[in-house]
């Protein structure tokens, strides 16, 4: 008999290698395309020159260099990091709450981040916090509240956590809607872009914190594959398999929320990546996290880079919010997933 998973055995390292090779290719293609198309050779040349010498190459014009290095490259890298972070957070939360329909937003952290961001946009910053800082703080505060509401006698039951997150989300969304109603007309498109997610306008300075957090959290999670698998089987089985269930779940929730907060504080509430990508990868490699997490990170990153490219180029000169594209791509897949029959081998 052979494994029912499409990618198993020797195909797995091949898939990882192909996706790794696709990263630089996709980045160059995404940076090269847009309102002005630039040749891939120039893009490659400019990026490598900046990375090695820290300066623009002499044979690329100042305008091209500006477009490549200061405009498109940072947003593309942010899309890569944001996609990876959201997809990994989604995969982990699906295991933590043991519900295939969970995503990074199930704990309400996005609603908290959105409320804080919209508050800063409409009411102005508080204590020197910009939109990103406020969103991050809002996400963390919401997580703390959800954990507090969802715990009883020191334990966190997955169902109660989800319900606490959903309930709090509605409250926070209500407050966000109220702020939107009171917003000046000029502030609305900014609010909409933030709520639907976008990597437009990202600069290299915005990237350091999310990059460090996404790489560190993903690396730690990738080492927890065995214990994550055990968590999927239920608290009692996980305990019988030697997992300190409550402590581990708290750590996973904190790390997943940190990932989500780090991403949405700079990229806004990009929907569906965290829900759809883990499922797509699981369909191919099966539920083993040791195999799926690296692919989830790579696929999520590449997916969002492609979505951002589409957002910039589909209807010029209008740039679409990322959430519009991820929803258009994600919803049909998600509905198919819901209606799919259980695989029978």
């Amino acid at each position, binding site marked *: *008999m*052979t*494994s*029912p*998973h499409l990618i198993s055995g020797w195909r797995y390292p091949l898939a990882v290698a192909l996706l790794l090779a696709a990263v630089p290719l996709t980045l160059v293609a995404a940076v090269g395309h847009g309102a002005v198309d630039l040749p891939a050779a120039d893009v490659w040349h400019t990026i490598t020159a900046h990375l090695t010498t820290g300066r623009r190459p002499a044979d690329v014009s100042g305008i091209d260099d500006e477009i490549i290095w200061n405009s498109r490259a940072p947003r593309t890298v942010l899309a890569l990091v944001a996609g990876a972070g959201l997809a990994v957070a989604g995969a982990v939360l699906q295991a933590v709450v*043991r*519900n*295939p329909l969970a995503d990074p937003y199930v704990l309400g952290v996005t609603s908290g981040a959105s409320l804080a961001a919209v508050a800063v946009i409409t009411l102005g910053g508080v204590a020197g916090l910009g939109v990103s800082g406020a969103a991050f703080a809002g996400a963390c505060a919401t997580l703390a509240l959800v954990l507090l509401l969802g715990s009883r006698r020191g334990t966190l039951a997955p169902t109660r956590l989800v319900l606490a997150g959903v309930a709090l989300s509605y409250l926070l969304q209500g407050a966000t809607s109220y702020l939107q109603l009171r917003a000046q007309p000029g502030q609305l498109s900014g609010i909409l872009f933030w709520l639907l997610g976008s990597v437009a306008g990202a600069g290299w300075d915005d990237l350091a914190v999310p990059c460090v957090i996404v790489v560190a959290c993903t690396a730690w999670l990738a080492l927890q594959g*065995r*214990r994550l*698998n*055990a968590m*999927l*089987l*239920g*608290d*009692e*089985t996980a*305990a*019988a*398999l*030697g*997992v*300190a269930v409550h402590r581990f779940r708290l750590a996973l929730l904190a790390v997943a929320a940190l990932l989500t907060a780090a991403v949405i504080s700079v990229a806004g509430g990009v929907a569906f990546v965290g829900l759809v990508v883990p499922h797509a990868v*699981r369909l191919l490699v*099966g*539920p*083993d996290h040791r195999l799926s997490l690296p692919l989830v990170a790579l696929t999520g990153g590449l997916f969002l880079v492609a979505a951002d490219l589409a957002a910039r180029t589909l209807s010029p000169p209008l740039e679409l919010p990322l959430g519009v594209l991820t929803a258009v791509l994600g919803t049909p897949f998600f509905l198919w997933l819901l209606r799919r029959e*259980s*695989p*029978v*081998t």
Partner: protein
Amino acid sequence: MRVELTGLHLPLGGVAGADLRVEPGEFVGLIGPNGSGKSTLLRSLYRTLRPEAGTVLVGGDDVWRTLSARRSAQRIAVVAQHGGDGFDFTVAELVATGRTPHRGAPAADRRIVAAALERVGMAGKADRVYTTLSGGERQRALLARALAQQGGVLVLDEPTNHLDVHAQFELLDLIRSLRVTALAALHELNLAAAYCDRLYVLDAGRIVAHGAPADVLTPDLLAEVFGVRAHLGVNPLTGRPNLAFAPLGQTPVPLTETGDPR
């Protein structure tokens, strides 16, 4: 590996002051009516329910005070139905989760998983999705996971539930043939009588009797604990103790061929 529960008090199931021993290599059964605390008591062994008082020693070390979650899972493996059906693990992947408390090389883990599947006769079904298996096959897959865990003690929580009579015998024969130290909560008293070296009887959280099946399963005890009339005889096919049951109270009217009770 020896299991010793001493003066065990648990916050659920009314378990109060339970003492229980399983000697190395013994197959010990835990019987009692629904809600008597069988599963609750077992949960204190695999670190899911922390005792309020008393000790749980496995191989001489306290599961709750001395051993970490991982170390205790290296000694105690569990066969119990706890869900986890939402994700499509294959049998091999499910059995591989038994390696969670160990930090072995992947190649060594794969060998151990394959050997465990071989021992329970499931080698040919390694790549089947677990949720597509029959009840008996599922229990054998869970048993293989417990074997892959390589603990010295096997804890079984009603392993024969929902199995047909053939699968029940098959599973318990298999477990006996493994010659492991085992503590099993069993619902079916005749299976307990036929397969266990010794039995402990739980009633409302208290151990009211223990010993060899033929000594424990007396009509008086079964009337007292289970509320049934029982006759302890010998199974003519196996020579093991065998119970026949009837409701307590007056002698039931035998059904006649005509169905007329007069």
